[in-house]
């Protein structure tokens, strides 16, 4: 899922303080799972902004609402009226939701979150990056652990010389992705695979190839 983190209140305040009617608009899927941008969090953020407005003595009408997903047209229908009434929207969706709304509505749309990464819920309150959406999955060669997302240097034939006691050189809290890969290869009895050289990667399916697009022709006529 997409993990996000709410921006500092001061930064948000700086973006919206000059508007009269601001809608804080939640997205109730990915960013709700990490308790940062769901409809409940939008409600909490709206009340914090109301308090801030009253402390600063500024009259802003702050409302809140939300939908299930800000990255799909069909969910917006139920919120049309409230969106139309606002003169600025603070979206607490990931960057995709914010951009999708900006494309859809000719009014100021601001991000309430910093979109952080594609992650897993390790436990409630702990989210970890697992994928960089490079567009060419190599998990089959790396025992199901992604060195592109989980190695600080993205080395594909690692580990680098900085791996110490299973941890990455950048931080003792970070697992060395290649230690994990080697451990898992050993567990699977596939250590011979370690010596296979990973070919030079084609990054054209990554961001290097420009914005990506997936078209399913078979679904277009439905």
């Amino acid at each position, binding site marked *: 899922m997409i993990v996000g983190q709410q921006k500092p209140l001061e930064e948000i305040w700086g973006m919206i303080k000059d508007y009269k009617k601001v809608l804080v608009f939640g997205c109730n899927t990915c960013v709700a799972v990490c308790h940062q941008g769901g409809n409940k969090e939008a409600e909490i953020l709206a009340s914090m902004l109301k308090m801030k407005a009253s402390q600063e003595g500024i009259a802003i009408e702050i409302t809140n609402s939300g939908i299930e997903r800000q990255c799909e047209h069909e969910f917006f229908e139920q919120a049309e009226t409230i969106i139309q009434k606002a003169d600025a929207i603070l979206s607490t969706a990931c960057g995709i939701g914010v951009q999708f709304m900006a494309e859809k509505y000719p009014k100021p749309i601001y991000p309430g979150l910093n979109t952080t990464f594609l992650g897993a819920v390790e436990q409630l309150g702990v989210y970890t990056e697992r994928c960089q959406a490079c567009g060419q999955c190599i998990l089959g060669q790396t025992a199901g652990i992604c060195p592109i997302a989980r190695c*600080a*240097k*993205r*080395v*594909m*034939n*690692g*580990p*680098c*010389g*900085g*791996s*110490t*006691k*299973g941890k990455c*050189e*950048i931080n003792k809290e970070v697992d*060395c992705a290649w*230690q994990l890969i*080697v*451990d898992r290869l*050993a567990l699977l009895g596939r*250590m011979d695979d*370690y*010596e296979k*050289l*990973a070919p*030079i*990667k084609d*990054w054209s399916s990554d961001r290097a190839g420009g914005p990506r697009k997936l078209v399913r022709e078979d679904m277009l006529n439905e």
Partner: protein
Amino acid sequence: MSNSTTPSKLQKILAAGHLGVTSECGPPRGSDPQAVIEKAELIKDYVDAVNITDNQTSVCRMCSLAACIRLKTLGVEPVLQMVTRDRNRIALQSDILGAASWDINNILCLSGDHQSFGDHAAGQNVHDLDSMQLIQTVRMMRDQGKFLGGDDIKRPPQMFVGAAANPFADPYEIRVARLAKKIAAGAEFIQTQCIYNLDKFEDWMKKVVDRGLHEKTYIMAGMTPMKSAGMARYMKNRVPGMDVPEDVVKRLADTPKDKQADEGIKICIEAIQRLKEVKGLSGFHIMAIEWEEKVPEIVKATGLYPRPQV
């Protein structure tokens, strides 16, 4: 061994069966070439080639290529260190050609320290290739005369291709396999991480020899003299992938402060003397970090001087 013959003096010395000696020089944090010239003058008669580091520890410095050219003009053979952290495959290949145009004949392929250690921690890294893929790239450019993209290169580079190995990083069980992998990628010489844990290094070398890898690449042992007990503690505790045994720290700490530097040189000399006997080792890479004036003393004391003429 790879049967390549490049104009590299370092390669000729190693191929002739001599123990090779290299050293390194970190370029200055400015554009004044004097620092490179002075370091080179200090060590040039005592080593076969001098590595120029590439923005080591991710601190921005004069580029390795320019400093290598400076060495070349002084009659010193450079080893161009190149990290994949800061450049994509176009820039890497372009710099390799630039170096080749100055007849720089040695390259050391590295991934580089993570930028979070340096003075530009907020910077983006690249890592389009990793170190093994850079080795493959240089070999392809040299041996096939081709760019990675497949086009022909006019006057391909003639480089003796090196890589680093850290016998002390984890997981230890794949350290020899990792060397084999670098050799398979095309590494013709290896310079190791600084060695302080001699027992562990000898164990690694034994496994290397058991696999016959010493017959496929030249292995040069990395040596860095310690200046003080403080430096030893710092390397032990703070430098990733470094193995400094407690008795080395203690030996320095038990020495009066004003004698610790001398003791550090002594430890280094003793280590080289011992490692000279290790089967499969082809030479020494003496990294006297900002202490280049000590290299002649170490080389002389260990019987590695005068350097052979080839």
